[in-house]
Structures are given as structure tokens and as C-alpha cells.
């Protein structure tokens, strides 16, 4: 599915300094019943965000108007658990374009890259600095520069480089996905398959 190109993102951020945020928290299984990719943002962090009677939980950060933005900063080991791409869809659909953490679970990270959410892995120290800065000043802006592969806390100028494979980087900057690529090499795949048993 096509997504918006990603180059430079400058935004405030929402801090969620909890470790091991798993995909069942990001989107609980009972909200995976759709057959189309619509409306998953409504159920992002459903059980942290809403009480059983669907009233908002006041103490959860997404219900606190002070914090907003296109960047979500999560604790270590973000996105562990299930392979549900719905977790990445919910994050995208809610309006986030970038998740920052000191460590990501594999499948989640991959899913993000496939749908246009940029996972930015920073050092634990830098993650701490971001949490402190945003908690201290919710209006603090962060710049994610994909071409330069840098993340910058604009108020202090603190900056770190982040990793991304050149291939994925180009995809993100152009809004391409892997299926476009694979389609383009189909004859090579078919030739390869002809030598393998079923």
C-alpha cells in the first residue's frame, strides 16, 4: 500500500517511557477483526486509553491534550510480541509517522518500514534525554532528518545519528514498497523457483 514520502519531519512528541510495550497493548487482538485497513488508530493503545465502559482514562498520555505530535517516543524493546501489522497501522492511522526507542522488536520494526512509519533507534542516554526534554516542555520540537539519518532535539541541539539500510531509506524517501521491487524481478524469481521442489 502506498504511503506518504518521508524526508524531514519536525514535530512535538508524545512520550511513553514504558519498557517492553508489546503489540497486544498497541492494538488488542479483539480489534483485529476488520478485513480492510481502516480505523485502527481509534483503538491504538485501547486498554490503556479507555476504561471498560469506553470512557477515556484521564491519566493516559494520549488523553492528555498537553502532549501531541507526529513522533511517539517509547521505552526499550518497543513492539515485542505478535507479528500483527495492525500495530504499525494503528500508529500510522493515529497520526504518528515516527517511533523513537532505544530498542525495537524485529518484526514490528520491519512492519513499520513496510508501511511508512520510520523506526528510529537511539542510544538509551539519548532516549532518556528526549523523555526529560519532552516531559519538561511538551512544546519541545524534535527533528527527524531521514536523508542525513539524524535525530535532533531542537531546543538544545543535541543530535544523534540513526541506522537504516540504504535500500529501506530510499524506499521511505520515495514512498515505495517491497512489492513494487519484487514485481520488477519476477522473471528472476520464477527462474529460481523452477529449480526447487514444491
Amino acid at each position, binding site marked *: *500500500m502506498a504511503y506518504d514520502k518521508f524526508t524531514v519531519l519536525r514535530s512535538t512528541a508524545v512520550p511513553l*517511557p*514504558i*519498557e*517492553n510495550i*508489546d503489540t*497486544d*497493548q498497541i492494538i*488488542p*487482538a*479483539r480489534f*483485529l*477483526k*476488520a*478485513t*480492510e*485497513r481502516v480505523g485502527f488508530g481509534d483503538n491504538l493503545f485501547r*486498554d490503556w486509553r479507555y476504561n*471498560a465502559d469506553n470512557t477515556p482514562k484521564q491519566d493516559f498520555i494520549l488523553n492528555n491534550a498537553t502532549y501531541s505530535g507526529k513522533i511517539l517516543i517509547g*521505552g*526499550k*524493546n518497543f513492539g*515485542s*510480541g*505478535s*507479528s*500483527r*501489522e*495492525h500495530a*504499525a497501522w494503528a500508529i500510522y492511522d493515529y497520526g504518528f509517522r515516527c517511533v523513537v526507542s532505544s*530498542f*525495537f*522488536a*524485529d*518484526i514490528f520494526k*520491519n*512492519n513499520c518500514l*513496510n*508501511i511508512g512509519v520510520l523506526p528510529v533507534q537511539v542510544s538509551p542516554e539519548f532516549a532518556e534525554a528526549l523523555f526529560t526534554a519532552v516531559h519538561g516542555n511538551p512544546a519541545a520540537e524534535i527533528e527527524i532528518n531521514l536523508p542525513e539519518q539524524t535525530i535532533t532535539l531542537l531546543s538544545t541541539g543535541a543530535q544523534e545519528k540513526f541506522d537504516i*539500510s*540504504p*535500500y*529501506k531509506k530510499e524506499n521511505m524517501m520515495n514512498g515505495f*514498497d*517491497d*512489492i513494487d*521491487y*519484487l*514485481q520488477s*524481478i*519476477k522473471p*528472476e*524469481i*520464477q527462474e*529460481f*523457483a523452477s529449480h*526447487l*521442489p*514444491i
Partner: protein
Amino acid sequence: MSKTLFDKVWDRHVVRKIEGGPDVVFIDRHLIHEVTSPVAFLGLKTRGIKVLYPERTFATADHNTPTINQHLPVADPLSANQLKALESNSNEYGISHWGLGHQKNGIVHVVGPENGITQPGTTIVCGDSHTSTHGAFGAIAFGIGTSEVEMVLSTQCIMQPKPKKMRITVNGKLGLGVTPKDVALFIISQLTTSGATGYFVEYAGDVFENMSMEGRMTVCNLSIEMGARGGMIAPDETTINYVKGREFSPKGEAWEKAEAYYRTLYTDADAVFDKEYTYDGSTIEPMITYGTNPGMGIGISQHIPDAEHVEGGVATYEKSLGYMGFSEGDQMIGKKVDYVFVGSCTNGRIEDFRAFASIVKGRHKADNVTAWLVPGSHVVEAQIREEGILDILTEAGFTLRQPGCSACLAMNDDKVPAGKYAVSTSNRNFEGRQGPGARTLLASPLVAAAAAVTGVVTDPRTLIEELV
């Protein structure tokens, strides 16, 4: 050059290496289910492309199916809709489909091996993280997202960088009442839920060599719970005997060729891993988890550790214990249990029901416990009947449900109520995994059985010894 088992299988499936990018990897077998496939099919339709090799994809309905009255129409309209979508998509693209009620229906990771779809040395993917289960056969098997499901449907390939390699060796004799589940929970408790992220694991050592295929599947299944992409075990006689003669296994001359290939699948003596861990199997106890991730496990006789002895942030640890209603220093034995769930792709196979029955035999279900016993497939269900296990269960006050994922992810009606404690043989104890507010204690079928008949967390060894 010396290669690991993983290298041998991976390298054989690389169609193309992209400079500064991932490998294009050919996928031999693709399993799909109703929850993570509909949007992928929608993608195919939008792009106007076909399924390239429908004979390499297999569909089964499991995540979202009821586990009672499967002959009736599915009551939840959204679930019914997903099941219908799986069926119509499979029909439209010529994919074999084992829907609700089909005799081959069951949990995707149970039916794959049962029917010989899972074979050594193959690449297997599914839109479900516990696809790692199939690694028990020496296959490279891992979970993928829906975008990748679409890639496999349309080109039979995915694009991933080659992961790093880890070997986990466990030698020694396992103690009484210690099952493959305990070995896996023990390893995860040592490595934490992210300790193997970025790695593909090979399990080695006599503990795994001595395991049945069912046991190996339990271990490989849980690889993802320490963050690993997958886990695998080199095929041996046990593997070959299991695979031979199953419906989709190679036959005749093709089998001879396949078997010769299977026998090349082992790690060369001087091959190098990026990381190695070694444990002594004789020190492992029956395990149980006390927190909200599978790494928070301890030997059943132990006490919940203090925050200072645990890796990670104190706030996260306290949040987790708060959710569970437990305190640092608590003893697990004696804690009240409200629900017992035996099932899932982790422990929903025949051996698991045999183990459960071995303890409940001659005893009775505790009154305070609601027990959900859910076979992983119809084949398992039939075995339970044939082996007389059903009679043992019935006599002890238990009933058997119909196959499906059930309370493993609580997408259907099998939800543990808020605040209640469930001893579960499944794989995840995340907040709300088994229902909003539900509290999960992961354990083996033996520990589940001990809880089911006593109504509290109980060391199964005490019940086994009584029998001796």
C-alpha cells in the same frame, strides 16, 4: 566454508542479494489464516496481481473461531466476515482452504506439521509470530506482517536482511516434571524478552536431541518470546520418522532425494555463531511466570524477585506486578487460580494432553477453576478420543472444546474475565492478552493440571510423587 544449519537453509533460498539492503528470499511454504490475510488479498486486488504459486500457500481458520458449537453459524458478524473472506479469497486464487469444520482444520502451526507441509530445510512463513514452531524440523520459519503476506502471495518472496546467529546449548538430564515448556521458559527467563532480538537461534545439546517432535515444536515456538526471529533444531531420525509418509511429504523417489537433503542439514563442526549460551538442563525446575512478559518466569518453588534483582526499569517492573496483583517476595505456590487453559500452538498437541491427563487421572477438577481444554486441531482431538484420554478427562470433571487458538489471544469468546488468574499453557502473558484485565501465568501442561485439580498454583512434582 563451514556453515551453520541456518546458513545452509538460508543461502539455498536467496534469489538475489541487494547491495546495502536485504536479501530476496524464496519461500517454500506459506501458511495463512483469517486475521492477517484479508488486507493482503485486498492489496493484490488493488494492484491487479495474481497469486504466483497458489500450491505453496495453505489456509486454515483458527484465530477467530469459536471452540464450541462449530457446526452453528459463527455468531460474531465480524469474525464470520473474516472467515468468509478467507474462504472466498482462497477459492478465488486456488489456495487449499481448511475452514471451520474441515477435518484438517486446526491451529496453523499444528496442522502444518501434522500434514507434512512442514519439511526440513524449507523456508516457511505465516502472518503469525509463532511460525517459529516449524523450526523444530530444521526449517527456517518465522512470522511476517501483512505487507509481507502480500509479497509472498504475489511473488513467493520476502525481503529481509540475514539475521545474526545464536546457538543455545542445553545438556544434562531433565528432572522429574520438567517439560520442554519449562526448558523454553527457563531460557527466556535467562535471556529476557529481547535477549535474542536480531538473531536466529539454533537449539543444540542432548536435551533437545532427546525431545519428541512435539517437544521440539514447543521450544521453537517460544523462540519469538525472547525476541528471536525464529529457532531451529537440526533434523535427525526423530524428525525424519515424523515427516515420512504424511500427506504433503515427498513420496517415492522424491522422498529419497529429500531425505538425502535432510541429512545434510546440521551445523558444521567449526561453524561460528555470533553468540552462544550454554545451560545445564538438570538445574531447570518446572517454571511459571509471575509478570506481564514471558521473560518474567521463575522456578515454581521460588519467590517473585525484588525489583533490584531484575534487569530493566523499576517503574515498568512495578507496573507489571501491580497489574498481576502480586508483590515482590511473594511465593507462587499456593496462589489462587480461577482459570486453566490448555491449548495453543505452544502446548495444544497430543503429548500435552497426555501430560495433563497423567496428573488429573483419578483426581477431580477443583470447584473454583474453570478449565478450557482446547486441542490444537481435529487430528489432536481425534487422538485424545482414541487414546482414552477423553475418558480420563471426563471422569475428572473436565470437558474438551473444539480446536482453535481460543484463549491464547482471546479474539473469540474464550476470554478470561478482568482480574482473574489463569494458568495457561500458551505463550504470552501480556496485559489483556487473554481478555481485558486478565492475569496470565504461563506454565507447562503439568503445572496447568496441578492447578486445575488443586485450585491453586501447585508444584506438579508433589502430585507425580504421590502417584509413584
